[in-house]
């Protein structure tokens, strides 16, 4: 399992890391958390993503990159069944979570979402005290044990405890943008998930807040599996172990759909991609 190293800062450091970096065969030795098999998601018949297959591995950070409109958000929302909330959405294909069909007939989306948490692009804390934000998940799920301890533990993991420990009763909206996002991460952690999905978690934040979130991700991946959607290639290069590049394809009737182009260890995607489309995107020729 790759260790959590500090992200490289200089080109020299990056070169060193590349030479000693693992390849995809090494990653595949890890446990498979999600097995995505030929998944197509359509809204009212129009496929947003088509025939995507890949495996997500445990305790890694996997990034999903690509130009806008390639279905990255749609894809990530499959994992915690958030697309269920959209009546016109249909999903074909299979996603297995630790070997179990995520969309099986007896599967309860509530159970799914407790194990697979999500952090959204724009921080969305509840308009309630900080404490109640973090405590919301354990309360609705009736988790046993001390609520205070859970809240503190979650806030510590999200590197927010020291900032807020004296003002837990203050409204969450009084926090800064970066703090709000870390609160949302704490909120997600409080229900003790297995996986954390992040849909462009830092795109609404300033660079300093962004780098704090990225440091946090490095810490979290020891205990959680993280899947992150980002339109920021440098961010993917900084944090992700594996990267999946999506692009837009034309469908038979002239529409657009997202497809998986290449999926490999991050350094390979960015320095030596196999597909020309990937190369065009990461070198900035388009997208």
């Amino acid at each position, binding site marked *: 399992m790759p260790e959590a190293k500090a992200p490289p800062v200089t080109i020299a450091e990056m070169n060193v890391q590349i030479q000693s970096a693992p390849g995809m065969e090494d990653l595949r030795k890890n446990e498979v958390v999600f097995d995505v098999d030929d998944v197509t998601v359509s809204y009212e018949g129009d496929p947003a993503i088509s025939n995507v297959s890949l495996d997500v591995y445990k305790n890694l950070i996997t990034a999903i990159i690509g130009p806008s409109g390639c279905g990255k958000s749609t894809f990530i929302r499959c994992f*915690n069944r*958030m697309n269920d*909330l959209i*009546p016109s959405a249909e999903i074909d294909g299979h996603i297995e979570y630790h070997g179990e069909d995520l969309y099986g007939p007896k599967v309860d989306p*509530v*159970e799914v*979402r*407790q194990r697979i*948490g*999500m952090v*959204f692009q*724009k921080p*969305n*804390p*509840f*308009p309630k005290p900080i404490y109640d934000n973090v405590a*919301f*998940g354990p309360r*609705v*799920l009736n988790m046993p044990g001390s609520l205070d301890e859970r809240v503190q533990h979650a806030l510590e993991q999200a590197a927010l405890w020291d900032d807020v420990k004296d003002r837990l009763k203050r409204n969450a909206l009084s926090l800064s943008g970066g703090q709000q996002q870390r609160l*949302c991460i704490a*909120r*997600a952690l409080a*229900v003790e998930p297995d996986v954390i999905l992040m849909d462009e978690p830092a795109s609404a934040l300033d660079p300093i807040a962004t780098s704090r979130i990225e440091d946090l991700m490095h810490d979290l991946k020891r205990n959680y599996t993280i899947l992150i959607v980002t339109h920021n290639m440098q961010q993917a290069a900084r944090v992700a172990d594996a990267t999946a590049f999506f692009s837009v394809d034309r469908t038979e009737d002239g529409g657009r759909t997202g497809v998986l182009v290449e999926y490999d260890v991050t350094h390979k995607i960015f320095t030596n991609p196999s597909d020309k489309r990937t190369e065009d995107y990461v070198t900035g020729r388009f997208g």
Partner: protein
Amino acid sequence: MKAAVFRAFLLLSLAVGFVTLGALLYDVFSKGLPLLDGRLLTGLPSSLAEEAGARPAIFATIEMGLLLIAFVVPIGVGTAIYLEEYANKERWYNRLLEVNIANLAAVPSIVYGILGLAFLVRGLGLGRVLLAGAMILTLLVLPTVIIAAREAIRAVPSSIREGAYALGATRWQVVWRQVLPAALPGIATGAILALSRALGETAPLIMIGALTYVPFNPTLLGEFTALPVQIYDWIGQPGDDFRALAAAGIIVLLGIVLTLNAVAILLRNRYQKRW
């Protein structure tokens, strides 16, 4: 030149409304204020103007108001929650439901009176009782409450719902713990405005027989009269004394109605969240 005349016409249009309002308030207060005393508020009605009071009517109005809130808020908010959070809006029956509510909001109040006469008083055999009055007023303002509650619920950003769902909350948990608390000020404003309107209604209550001589305190299943109906009765009595009594009763009614309106508007302004 034309512009100045036009502006004058616009100001005149505004003036018509406000001057009338001013004249109305002046007329009512000048005739009614002298009679606004304990006897009016605590006395029983009588065929003699010097002795008449409106206590049963005021009590009935207050009781109906309480019943109204108890009925209309659960049903109205429940319907709004159903339409906004649970219903699939593509289905024809849900669309029909929405159209139906919009139509009911515009039906004249006397038609609700006819409904009450046909079903509650005679059909269900309730008779001309206070409970029937409260029920008819509930049906009358229900569409307005539903519409106000829907707007308040819709104003809650979907990002909050998504955040709650993503944590593993069920639909009802999301509604009860996040959506309703956030929508509460808007719902309360709508309910209070509906109450204010209902308490001023006369026609439906006349139709279900509230225009009677009620020299006793009203009970739930007994005959009753309400403040607007009492006022109407006094207007119809011959003589200036009863007209003055009517004016005094109007002051009380206006006091109730305008206070409720003011509370609702204060609530709206204070809690208007900018999402």
